[in-house]
């Protein structure tokens, strides 16, 4: 069964460093999302991406964040200069053009020291 994959599973970085979180959505899906979950809190929407551009972003997704689909398979989230408060689990999700269901990856746990 096709699934969304994410790498790495856990990333530890120093404050101020850049990180890139990688996702491989399901191959025929066209809509891509990033969410984050700070420990003990709810899952929050960051950004949606369709047709090679951002379709919507939340107020969390400021200038420090960017997304890219560098090739036909990967979907990346970059944080330019990480802050302590960026520590969270980051989930990638995708869906096809007809479906209502978003399929989630297993997440990347980002720890900023």
């Amino acid at each position, binding site marked *: 069964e096709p699934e969304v994959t994410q790498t790495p599973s856990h990333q530890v970085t120093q404050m101020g460093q850049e990180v890139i979180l990688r996702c491989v959505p399901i191959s025929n899906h066209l809509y891509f999302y990033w969410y984050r979950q700070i420990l003990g809190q709810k899952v929050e929407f960051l950004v949606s991406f369709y047709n090679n551009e951002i379709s919507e972003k939340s107020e969390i997704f400021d200038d420090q964040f960017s997304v890219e689909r560098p090739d036909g398979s990967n979907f990346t989230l970059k944080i330019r200069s990480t802050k302590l408060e960026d520590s969270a689990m980051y989930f990638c999700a995708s869906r096809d053009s007809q479906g209502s269901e978003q399929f*989630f990856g297993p997440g990347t746990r980002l720890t900023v020291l």
Partner: protein
Amino acid sequence: AQSVTQLDSQVPVFEEAPVELRCNYSSSVSVYLFWYVQYPNQGLQLLLKYLSGSTLVKGINGFEAEFNKSQTSFHLRKPSVHISDTAEYFCAVRRSQGNLIFGKGTKLSVKP
């Protein structure tokens, strides 16, 4: 603006007992509603969804939910829980733009 409220942050229950996890939403437009489950150290897995049609929706692992428009609720139920159902459960509503708004989650703890 759409929002989701899960009234119970934690629900302890004994094995084989019934359980109901409550979810209320606010939305001025038609809604798509979802329940996701998150097992420890794992991602989010879809349990069930309501898009339209029958208000009683059946999902995986014996769970079901009932959409109640007048009460703006979408409570999740299971008649008899197992130890393996111990997890965190998230209710979500899909916005017209496609992204999901999640509730704060309910931790279900099933005791033997």
